[in-house]
């Protein structure tokens, strides 16, 4: 309540000697316009929290019920890629923050540069996601269609930074193969979880008459949540990159200045938010019961 009372009504009558060209007609001042934008963006992010929240809820419930299946599914993901991508996204948050910093300083050229860095890092993130997704398709753990459990064939997983870089550019990794340490997956998972039984619908959809999907069906639920959550996250990344490209273009043309750069700030908020979502997704999806 105090919060509300101390806030006074916005000043509005003061005459503005010069109207900033970017001041919309219905605002009285740049200050007011900026504030409105920031508040609007924060509220938008609140709705985003609740949007992802629905999936976090489903995740929490099913992880609680089917913990073993979630642990088994989680162990199929590559911890190397997960960690790498987390670092990439954090770095992109840093470059985004620096872009905003330079925008505040009115340093247009650096703004463009840091926006580009951010875009590049974001693209790397998506590239990794693409690799991971293809691997999951190859391993037949995409939850719709030809889902199989336990997996019969393992895709290549990196187990060092060099391999990751090679794989990023599409080359064959040197020493990561199903025999590498990450292969421990098959051994660990099959010993710990194999006894849980197979997926009754091996080789396709669960047949109509066999309704019990068994343990593998619950793993499938894990992968469903994995794809839904990371998929929606990736969609947000794509939108973010689109926005950044637009901003970089505008910044290059000199649209922004010390006084007027709120779009950069707002997009920054958005970008950081997407980063935060990943900060939670990473341990929740990649790190369930890793200590086998």
């Amino acid at each position, binding site marked *: 309540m105090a919060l509300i009372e101390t806030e006074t009504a916005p000043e509005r009558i003061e005459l503005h000697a010069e109207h900033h060209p970017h001041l919309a007609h219905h605002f009285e001042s740049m200050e007011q316009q900026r504030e409105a934008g920031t508040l609007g963006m924060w509220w938008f992010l609140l709705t985003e929290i609740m949007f992802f929240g629905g999936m976090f809820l489903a995740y929490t419930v099913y992880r*609680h019920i089917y913990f073993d299946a979630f642990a088994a599914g989680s162990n199929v993901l590559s911890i190397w890629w997960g960690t790498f991508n987390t670092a990439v996204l954090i770095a992109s*948050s840093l470059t985004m923050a620096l872009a905003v910093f330079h925008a505040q300083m009115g340093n247009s050229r650096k703004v463009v540069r840091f926006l580009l860095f951010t875009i590049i890092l974001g693209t790397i993130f998506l590239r990794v996601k693409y690799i991971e997704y293809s691997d999951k398709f190859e391993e037949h753990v995409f939850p719709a269609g030809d889902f199989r459990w336990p997996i019969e064939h393992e895709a290549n997983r990196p187990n060092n930074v060099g391999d990751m870089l090679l794989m990023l550019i599409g080359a064959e990794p040197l020493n990561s193969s199903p025999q590498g340490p990450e292969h421990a997956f098959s051994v660990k998972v099959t010993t710990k979880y194999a006894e849980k039984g197979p997926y009754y619908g091996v080789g396709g959809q669960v047949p109509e008459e066999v309704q019990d999907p068994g343990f593998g069906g619950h793993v499938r639920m894990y992968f469903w949540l994995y794809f839904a959550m990371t998929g929606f996250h990736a969609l947000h990344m794509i939108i973010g990159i689109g926005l950044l490209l637009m901003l970089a273009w505008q910044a290059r043309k000199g649209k922004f200045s010390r006084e007027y750069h709120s779009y950069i700030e707002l997009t920054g908020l958005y970008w950081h938010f997407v980063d935060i979502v990943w900060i939670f997704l990473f341990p929740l999806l990649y790190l369930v019961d890793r200590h086998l």
Partner: protein
Amino acid sequence: MSEHIVPKKIYYRIFGALLVGTALTVIFAFINLGNFNIVAALLIAIAKALLVITFFMHVKYSSRLTKLWVAVGFIWLFIMLAITMTDYLSRAWLVYRP
């Protein structure tokens, strides 16, 4: 209300802290802490998120109102999770526990 400019130095420090946090997350995941694995993972994630919110997103320098709204967002999420989980925890038919 003019905008507050955060020195670059702080950004780099936060970046460092976030990387350390990521490393810790991974390390803790490989240590068997029983039920505390998830607690540790979440605590670290919350700490990292707070760093991002506070510094990268400038909430530290924003109005109390902004702080309130950020809190509201997470509190609402918590309400949804907590109340729904109450159902699952007090319904006896679901007993697949880890």
